[in-house]
């Protein structure tokens, strides 16, 4: 294909799909490049469940109301102000129409009275989860004429004198080639799935990290952009990480390996001594506190110790717990020193922290844990048209970015449940629309 595409979208996650569909619906030619094989297309939306939307009144898919003001306040609270106010406002405002837009593009949503989803007035749930949503969007994109290639990794190369971009393409099956584009929307996700990149920012400890999401969001595109002079936001050494089951896969463990039962037991490190994550408690935010705490342990490994009572209270996990009839048995099964573990348990029971339960009733159980990276607070700077802002503050009318690769503009730190998908969909749609508008001139 020697022709020049109006819009080339790099990355077939939620942001890329929304950009491609929005651009195509605006009447321009669109090519979508996704480096993962088709079984793993869709990026991290595959692992996501719900997304946050503003709504003034109850709808079929979300109860009660969630005002723009509340969303902005929530955002300001978790980011402690580390957020571009203009982009934040745009995100919040456009979240109000994103659910209907996704539905119009084939995504079925789940009604709150169907199944067992928890009550949530802030978020809506795609029926069947993120992967079902991704499948629906791929079908729609195909139907409306977006040219889609999976197994195709893009590397940005150069801009020619007429302003068009040339993109180098590596595919699993054919020899390297290059394609031309009038505009590019980069939706290649954040950094963090590349072990070498992680090691360069987190040291040797990074080898003990799990990556909860897709290995294909490898950050090479982000590195290309930074090398080309793109401005950056956020901090590569700050990431969102949670405790995950150490027995899970290095990549792509998704939601099911997250250890949810920490508030019902006690955590010890490899020396069987109790550790605590300051201020973790039982709030939903405790997840994000435990990740870094475990990352600081020797071997990036810690153990959650539960008794029969705590296990009963806990939500089911993907892997069965390791169990022992006595604390000594359990220590043995875990390869920990029995005497130290017994001491730690006794000390814990003797001086129970507020809200904690004693570890007393057999059978005892344990989960080995490691830190699992969800995403890194680092990406390219964009303006409110989703144009990449260069380090010297220039911007380029033909180069856009959306989704996790620019998320740090809005969430410089912290996280809100359901924000990632909303951000990818809203900014993806916006970037696709802006790119098409540029093509139309």
């Amino acid at each position: 294909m020697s022709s020049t595409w109006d819009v080339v979208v790099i990355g077939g996650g939620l942001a890329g799909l929304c950009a491609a569909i929005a651009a195509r619906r605006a009447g321009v030619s669109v090519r979508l490049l996704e480096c993962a094989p088709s079984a793993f297309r869709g990026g991290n939306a595959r692992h996501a469940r719900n997304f946050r939307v503003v709504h003034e009144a109850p709808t079929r898919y979300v109860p009660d109301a969630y005002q723009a003001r509340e969303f902005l306040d929530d955002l300001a609270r978790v980011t402690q102000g580390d957020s571009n106010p203009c982009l934040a406002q745009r995100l919040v405002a456009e979240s109000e129409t994103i659910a209907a837009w996704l539905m119009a593009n084939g995504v079925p949503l789940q009604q709150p009275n169907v199944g067992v989803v928890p009550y949530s007035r802030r978020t809506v749930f795609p029926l069947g989860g993120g992967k079902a949503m991704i499948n629906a969007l791929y079908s729609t994109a195909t139907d409306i004429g977006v040219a889609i290639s999976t197994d195709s990794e893009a590397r940005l190369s150069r801009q020619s004198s007429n302003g068009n971009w040339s993109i180098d393409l590596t595919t699993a099956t054919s020899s390297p080639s290059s394609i031309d584009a009038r505009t590019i929307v980069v939706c290649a996700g954040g950094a963090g799935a590349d072990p070498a990149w992680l090691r360069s920012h987190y040291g040797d400890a990074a080898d003990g990290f799990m990556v909860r999401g897709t290995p294909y969001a490898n950050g090479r595109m982000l590195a290309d952009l930074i090398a080309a002079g793109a401005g950056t936001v956020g901090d590569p050494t700050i990431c969102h990480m949670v405790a995950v089951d150490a027995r899970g896969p290095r990549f792509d463990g998704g939601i099911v390996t997250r250890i949810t039962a920490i508030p019902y037991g006690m955590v010890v490190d490899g020396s069987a001594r109790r550790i605590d994550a300051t201020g973790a408690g039982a709030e939903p935010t405790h997840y994000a506190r435990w990740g870094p705490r475990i990352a600081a342990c020797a071997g990036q490994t810690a153990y959650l110790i539960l008794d029969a009572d705590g296990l009963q209270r806990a939500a089911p996990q993907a892997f069965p717990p390791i169990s022992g009839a006595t604390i000594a048995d359990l220590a043995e099964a875990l390869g920990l020193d029995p005497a130290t573990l017994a001491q730690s348990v006794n000390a814990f029971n003797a001086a129970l922290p507020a809200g904690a339960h004693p570890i007393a009733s057999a059978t005892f159980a344990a989960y080995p844990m490691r830190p699992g990276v969800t995403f890194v607070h680092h990406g390219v700077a964009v303006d409110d048209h989703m144009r990449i802002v260069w380090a010297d503050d220039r911007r380029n009318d033909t180069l856009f970015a959306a989704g996790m690769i620019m998320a740090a503009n809005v969430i410089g730190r912290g996280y809100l449940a359901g924000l990632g998908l909303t951000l990818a969909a809203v900014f993806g749609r916006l970037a696709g629309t802006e790119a098409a508008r540029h093509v139309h001139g």
Partner: protein
Amino acid sequence: MSTADTSTDELTAEAERVLRICTACMYCDGLCPVFPAIDDKHEFRLSDLNYLSNLCHNCRGCWYACQYAPPHPFAVNLPATLAAVRRRSYADHLWPPVLGRAFGSPVTGIAAIVSLIVLATLAFVLLSSPPAALFGADDSEGAFYRVLPWSIMAGAAGASLLWAVACIGLATLRFWRTMAPDVPRGALLRALAPALRDIVTLRHLGGGGPGCNDVGERTSHHRRLFHHVMVAGFAGTALSTVSAAIYHHALGVAAPYPLASLPVLLGLVGGVVMLAGIAGLLWIEHRADTEPSDRTEVALNVTFLILLGLVTLSGLAVLAFRETPAMGLLLAGHLGLVFGFFVVLPFSKAVHAPFRAAALLRAAAEKAAAGARSKRDRG
């Protein structure tokens, strides 16, 4: 009541592994009742596996929606896993139990038995009726009974039907006993209406709204539609038989009946409609992705559909050629197929209907007993 049996075979272990991942995930909870039924479960007894596998309608929605489908290392394939458990649940509960053992290779068994019965019927007719009656191009009143006397025809049909009903009934009872819910009788009563609605409407072939993944990644309502069409056609032919019985006993008129009579019209329309449904379902089986299914279950489906199709086709052939010399043999062949169909019914795919109905009743009963449950907030 449920038995806390602990089987350690491979299939059970795989089902437990997969369900454990699903319970931790639950992203598919809106697709079908299997997911609400595993919510917050830490372990699964064999009775639960039997229940869950029959609650699954094999809509395949959770295969395409699964973030852990192979090549992911978790290799979750819930539809295929549940299909294998479901097939075992049939084998374990069939009655008489010896059928369960024969169920090991159901397709060969079904083909062999039906062929044998058809041949036996043909042989009987050839040996017992005079050639004049058999090849006489006779369609006057009572002609059918000159091929095979009414008493034998009705006797064989009645006996084979009774066998089918008794076996399937007892199998369903055995199945219900191993997995009946632990709920008050009141809840069970309250569950009857909603369960019946789910059974009749095939609601769970709706994939929670958009339809099931009949053949691939896209959803449609075709399977549900063709299943309804097939059952409607079957109901038509069943009514045809009932009306014929009324003609015979109440009105004293013997078959064959005129084209414009109720039995013939119901049979004709029902037969054609049923064939349309069967063709649709076979077409879907033929095009469907094989990965999320269990090969033996597919073979069972196809065998059953082909057998039902042959019964219907042969019935229509009798009607079409009843004025020709071929009528005698066609009728004998059709009757042989009908007898054979009923004889093999208790170890054919037909058992899915009462087993699934039982599972839906348990699901509805548990829902009725639970009432409004409190939900966790995910923020």
